[in-house]
């Protein structure tokens, strides 16, 4: 039963106040994109045993989407951050490296 802090309203959310939204930082490919890129956009997913970036919506709360960096094997949370970004912020990356020295960064 996860607890994630909503970066928008500051609440330490119980998992049941949230709705999971899958992998974060996907780049949308629309008309004009190659079949490969479009397939990757819809279906190719990171599925790491370890650090993962994902989307959550504070559905039973302020209604905002936010992003989280989490470990899929220990469920440790490295931090949550705004959805209005294409890359994890530096402080999140630093916190991950501090706790997972051999993390190779996002694949």
């Amino acid at each position, binding site marked *: *039963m*996860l607890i994630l802090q909503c970066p928008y309203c500051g609440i330490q959310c119980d*998992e*049941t106040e949230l*709705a*999971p939204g*899958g*992998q974060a930082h996907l780049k949308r490919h629309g008309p004009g994109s190659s*079949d*490969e890129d479009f*397939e990757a956009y*819809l*279906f*190719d*997913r990171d*599925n*790491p*045993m370890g650090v*993962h970036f*994902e989307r959550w919506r504070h559905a039973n709360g302020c209604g905002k989407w936010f992003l989280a960096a*989490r470990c*899929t*094997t*220990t*469920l440790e949370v490295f931090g949550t951050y705004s959805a209005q970004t294409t890359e994890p912020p530096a402080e999140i990356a630093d916190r991950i490296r501090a706790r997972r020295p051999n993390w190779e960064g996002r694949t």
Partner: protein
Amino acid sequence: MRRYSAFAIAREALRHHTGWNRAWRSRDPKKHYKVIVIGAGGHGLATAYYLGKNYGIRDIAVLEKGWLGGGNTGRNTTIIRSNYLQDPSAAIYEKSRSLYETFSQDVNYNAMFSPRGVLMLAQTHHEVRGYQRTAHANALQGVETEFVGPERVKEIVPIINIDGPRYPVLGALWQPRGGTARHDAVAWGYARACSGMGMDIIQKCEVTGVRSDGGTVTGVTTTKGDIACDKLAIVVAGHSGHLAGMAGFRLPIESVALQALVSEPIKPCMDCVVMANTVHGYMSQSDKGEMVIGGGADGYNNYTQRGSFHHVEETVRALVETFPMISRLKMMRQWGGIVDMTGDRSPIISKTPLGNTFINCGWGTGGFKSIPGSGWAMAELVAKGEPGPLAAEFGLDRFREGRFIDESVAAGVAH
């Protein structure tokens, strides 16, 4: 290999069962095998078994990082059915179901397949129409199903509450030859049979790398040393993405936790499997008497084999409403398994970008019921290098073409 029978037991009883030999041989890996199967779960062992039985390939090693059948094969709710909507699904699940019918005799190991019937409740008008459609499809697919009314439902499962205040039972899709089997025994039976054919089943042997040359697989590196092979079959359920990474390709898969639980054992009170998809819960009773219960999967990637309790809560809530008599029964044990979910929630049985390397994964919540059929189709793919009719539609290429096999379109969710 000594045959199992009542007479064998009687004979052994006289000498305190000291004469039984190992169900499967244990040995260190050879340097080379014709085929290496990674994963000694039901699907991996079935693949090896049918490679031997249908194609005479017996120079096979089945590598298992943990213990035999220790993944989802030993953690599921043992439901076997084939009342699927789409042709490709119905074909492979029905093949599987029919192989289960004769499993115990084929491998001389009693897996207790028990076609006691599977009942999928329709509790909204939309579900009624969905299941009527499935019944029509099944009629043309050679899958024996029938849409039955509430009275018949009550006949089949007297403990069910067909006129609950919220979701009265409007009918159900009934598959009389669906049922359950003893999950561990499926893995054990295949393992014993494979061993009997001279294959090596090597436990506590973790694959740490896939070796290739010029785009074609040459072998694997493991915690028990390097092993060469001509062909490689990856059949590792929840860890498929991980293994695919080693082989240098990616999969349209996410791994999530799926939970199940059992009640304390009680005397028989329910003779078939009941699935209530509107309210998200399903239940059957094991031969030991436990009510075996499952529900929905977590919505986030998770490798812990622990799920979130609110899913258990939602499931139990639904079943207490559907079967009021279980309210005073007690949950004895809950657990989780890792299931891999594909983009269309249907499995992948496919060639891969790496030559002579094949993958079988993405069974999601349908893993156990498909074991024999999956093994049968995978064996054909590995042996011939090309998919046969059963596997043809389950290739990786379908995601690029948008040619999905979507079962969620029938009112039911797959379990």
